[in-house]
C-alpha cells in the first residue's frame, strides 16, 4: 500500500540560497495532492527531496511515520514521473516498464504479468517492442506512468507530467491519471503550474510561492477562501481584481471577475457595487469579459449578454457581498 507522507518543517538550501523555507505538509495515505506555484518556487526541489534525490538541509520527511533521513533514493521505494519522462532510450517499452521490477529481483513470471497488466491498463499493449524514440509524446508519457505503477510505490511523484502534451490530450490524460491513482489507492504528489489541472485532479492543493507554503486545502477552499492575496491572485482566471477599499486605507478588496456582473434589478440590498466606463469588450465563448474603467483603474467583470453595452458606455457592476474578499494591505493576509 501507499504511505502517508509527512513533510515536517523541511528546509532546503542550495549553497547560500534558501529554496524551501520550512515546509509543513501532512499528506494522507492515498491522497492526491497537487503542488501549485509559479516557476522557480521550489516545486521540483520539494519532489526531489521527498524522493531522496536531494538532501534536505533541515527538517524531516516521514513515510508512515518512519524518518527517511538515512535512506537513499534507492531504498525509499518512490516512483517519479519526470517532466521529460526520462525513458531509457536504449530499452524497449517493455524493458523500460520492467526495469524497476528487475532491480527488485522479482521472478520472471511476475514481471511478465505486471508488465502485461500495466500495458493493458495504459493502452500500450501494441507498443511493447518499440523504442522510446519511435513513440509520440503522449505514448511516452504513458510509458513513464507505466514504469511508475508496476510496483507498489510508497508514493507516486509527478513533475509536470502533462506539460509537454497538447491541450486535448492533457485534458484527457488528467482524468486517466486521476482514475488510475484512485483505483490503485496511490498517494500522489503532483506538480503543476496549471491551476485548472490542480483544481480538477486534486484532493488537496498546496500553493507555494518562493519556497513558502501559502495554503494547503481542498480545491474549492483554495478558490473560495484564499488564505492571502498571493493565493487569491494566483488561483482563478482571469485574475482577481484588487481595489482599494473606499472606507479603509489598510484594506484591499478582492473581486473575482466571475462574481462581478452588470447590476440588475434582482441585486439585493447588501450587494457590493461599482460604477465605471466600459473600455473593452472581449467575447470569450460562454460569456463576455468587460474591462471597465473605475476611477482610473481597470476592473474586469463578466457579462452573459451585452445587448445594451458598448465601448464607452457607462455601466454599474455589482457582486454579492459574500464574494467580496478583504486583504490586509501590509501583510496580504485575508481578513
Amino acid at each position: 500500500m501507499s504511505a502517508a507522507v509527512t513533510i515536517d518543517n523541511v528546509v532546503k538550501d542550495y549553497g547560500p540560497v534558501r529554496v524551501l523555507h520550512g515546509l509543513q505538509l501532512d499528506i494522507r495515505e492515498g491522497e492526491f495532492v497537487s503542488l501549485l506555484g509559479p516557476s522557480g518556487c521550489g516545486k521540483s526541489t520539494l519532489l526531489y527531496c521527498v524522493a531522496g534525490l536531494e538532501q534536505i538541509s533541515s527538517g524531516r520527511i516521514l513515510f508512515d511515520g518512519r524518518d527517511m533521513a538515512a535512506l537513499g533514493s534507492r531504498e525509499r521505494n518512490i516512483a517519479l514521473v519526470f517532466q521529460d519522462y526520462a525513458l531509457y532510450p536504449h530499452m524497449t517499452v517493455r524493458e523500460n516498464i520492467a526495469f524497476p521490477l528487475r532491480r527488485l529481483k522479482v521472478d520472471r513470471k511476475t514481471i511478465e504479468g505486471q508488465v502485461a497488466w500495466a500495458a493493458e491498463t495504459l493502452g500500450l499493449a501494441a507498443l511493447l517492442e518499440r523504442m522510446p524514440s519511435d513513440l509520440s509524446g503522449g505514448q511516452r508519457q504513458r510509458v513513464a506512468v507505466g514504469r511508475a505503477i508496476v510496483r507498489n510505490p510508497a508514493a507516486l511523484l509527478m513533475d509536470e507530467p502533462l506539460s509537454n502534451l497538447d491541450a486535448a490530450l492533457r485534458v484527457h490524460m488528467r482524468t486517466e491519471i486521476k482514475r488510475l491513482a484512485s483505483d490503485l489507492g496511490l498517494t500522489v504528489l503532483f506538480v503543476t503550474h496549471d491551476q485548472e489541472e490542480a483544481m480538477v485532479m486534486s484532493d488537496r492543493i498546496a500553493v507555494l510561492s518562493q519556497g513558502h507554503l501559502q495554503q494547503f486545502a481542498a480545491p474549492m477552499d483554495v478558490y473560495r477562501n484564499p488564505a492571502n492575496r498571493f493565493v487569491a491572485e494566483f488561483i482563478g482566471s482571469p485574475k482577481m481584481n484588487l481595489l482599494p477599499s473606499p472606507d479603509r486605507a489598510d484594506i484591499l478588496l478582492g473581486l473575482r471577475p466571475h462574481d462581478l456582473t452588470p447590476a440588475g434589478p434582482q441585486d439585493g440590498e447588501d450587494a457590493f457595487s461599482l460604477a465605471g466606463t466600459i473600455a473593452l469588450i472581449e467575447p470569450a465563448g460562454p460569456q463576455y469579459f468587460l474591462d471597465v474603467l473605475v476611477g482610473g483603474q481597470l476592473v474586469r467583470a463578466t457579462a452573459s449578454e451585452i445587448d445594451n453595452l458598448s465601448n464607452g458606455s457607462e455601466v454599474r457592476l455589482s457582486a454579492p457581498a459574500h464574494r467580496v474578499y478583504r486583504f490586509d494591505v501590509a501583510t496580504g493576509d485575508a481578513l
Partner: protein
Amino acid sequence: MIADETHKQETHKQTDSRPRRRFWSRGPRPPLFAYLAVSPTLVFVALIVGMPLVYSVWLAVHKANPITRKNTFVGLDNFRFVLSETSFWNAFGRTAHFVGFSLVGTTILGIAIALVLHEPFRGRGFMRSVMLVPWAMAPVSIGVLWSFIYAGDIGTLNGLLHDLGLGFLATAWLGDGNRALNLVALTHVWNQTPLTALMVLAGLQSMPASLHKAAMLDGAGPVTRFFRITLPWLKPTLLFVSIIATINALMAFDIIWIMTRGGPGEATTVFAWLGYVYSFQFLRFGEGAAMLYLLTGLSFLMAVFYVLVLGPRRSRHQAIPAATALDDDVAVRSPRPYSIKVPPTREPLVSPALRAVLARLGFRALVLTIFLWSALPVMLLILMSITPASDLIRVPPSAIPSALTFDNFRAVLFPEGGTTSVQAKRVPLSLLNSLIVGAVSVAIALAVTPFAGYVFARWPRARLFQGGLWSMLFTRMTPALTLVLPFFVIYRTLGLIDTHIGLVIAHLSILLPLIAWMMKSTFEGVPKSLDSAARIDGCSHMQMMLRVLLPVIRPGLMAAAIFGFLVSWNEFLFAVILTSTPDAQTIPVVLSGFLAQARFHEYGPMFAASVLSVLPPVVVAFVFQRYLVEGALSGAVKG
C-alpha cells in the same frame, strides 16, 4: 481511451509514406551558388589527395625496376606477393596486438577520466586542460620524451629506480621485443586517451540528468547504472571513438619511428612501419603501396565491423492486433495482478556522513591520479630541459639534477652564441618554418572549406556533395604513408622538395578534409531560417555567407583554426620525407634529427627543443580548452 492516440499515429504514418522520388533527384536541387561554393575545396582535394591516390594505386599494380626505372604492369601480383610474405603476417599479428592494446587501454582509461572530469568540482576546467596535454603534444615530442624515460643506461625510469635504491630492477626497457611493443603501445595510449576522454565527456554532457535520477528511484545502484544507463547512452560515442582509435592505432607511425624504428629485431614492426620500410628503404614502391592499401582496407573493415556491433538498435514493429485495447474507455479495469513488496530496508553499514567523507577522499585521489598521469611526464620533460647536459648521461643515472640551468635553451635559441651542436643551430629556423607552414595552411584551408562545409550541411542529399563528403571521409582512412610516396615522386619532378609551398600543399591534404568536415558539423548547428532571413533581407548568397553566417560560426572557425594549426605543427611524416635540408624542415623533423645523430652531449638541447615544440600545443590546450572540446564535438579527430 488513451489508446486512440496510438491509432491516430498509425494512420498518420501510413499517409506519410508518399511514393518515393526518382533516385537521382534527392531533395531540392541545389542552386548554382552551392556548386560554386563547393568546387574550390573539391578541386583542391581532387588535386592534392585524389591525384596522389590514383598514382599510388597505379604504383600498387606496377612493378618498378629500380635500376632500369622501368615499370611493368603486374596486376594484383604485388598484393599476392605481400600476402604470401611471412614478414607481412608477422607484422599483421603485431598490428593486431598493438591495436588491441591501444583500443582497450584508451577506451577504459578514457571513460574513467571522462567520468571523473564530468563531475562538478573546483578546478575542473584546469584539470580538463591538463588532461588534454598529452594529446596536444606532437607524437615526435612524445616519442623523444618516452624513449628517454625508457632508455637503458641513462634513462629517467632507471634513474628513478636508482634513486629509490631499486637499481637492480633497472633494465633496457625497450631492449626486449615483446616489452618494447607493449611500451610503445602504452605510449600511444598515453597520447590518445585524452581524445577518447574528450569525446566521452561530450557524450556524458548530452545525457539528461533525469535518466540517472529515474534509475536511482527504480532501485539501480551506481554499478548497475553505469552498465545499464551510462554505457548504453554512450554507445554511439563509443562507436565513433572505436573507429577513430582503431584508425589512429593502425596508422601509428611517428612514435615508432622515434622510439624503436621497428626494432629491436622486428619486434615493433607493425603494418605501417613495414609499408614504410618497403617503400622507402627497399624502394619497392609497388609492394609498399599494396601493403598500405591493405591497411586502408583493414581500417574500412574494422569500421564496418564496429558499426555492425555497436550500431543503433531499432524497434521491432509488431503487427497490431485489430481490436486490442484500441476501443475507447475500458469501463472495468483488471486489477493489478501482483502486489510487489519492497524488501525491508537494512540500515546502512556506514553512516551517510562517513560514506560522504570516504567518497570525497576517493574522488580527490582519482583527480590526483589523472593529474599525475597526464602532467608528470611533461614536467619531467621540462625538468630535463633545464638539467645540465652532462647530468643526462650520468652512469648510474639519476632523476635528480645536480643543478638547474638555461644553457640548453640558450643553445637552441641563440645558436650564434657558440654552440657546437649542428642540430641545435637548426632549431630557430625550424620553429619559424613550422609557424609559417602552419599559418599558411590554416589560412588557405579556412578560406575555402567553410563554403564547402556550408554546402555539405545544407544539401546533404545531393548526389555530388554526398560523394564529395564520402571521399573526404575515405581520405581519413588512408594512411598518410600512401600519399607521401606519390608526393615525393611528384615533388622531385616539380622541384618542390625542401620548399615551404611543398609542405603547405602536403599539409593541406590532411587539413582540407578535416576542416571541411568540421565546418559541415558546425553549419549543421546553424538554423536554416538564418539563411532565409538573410536572403529575404536582400543579401546575395555571397553576402549571406560573409555578413551573416561566417560571423555566426566564429567559434567554430576558431576551433578549426586551432585544430588545423596543431595538426600542421605536430605533423611529422610529410615533413621528414619531403625535406632534406634545414631550409624548410619543421620542428618535429629537427627533433627527430637529434635522435638520429645520437650524440650524447646533445640531449640537453634536444629536450630544450622538445619543450619549445610542445609549448604552443600546451598553451593552446590551456587557453582554448573550450574550443578544443567544441572541435572534438564537431568531429575533428585527427590523431
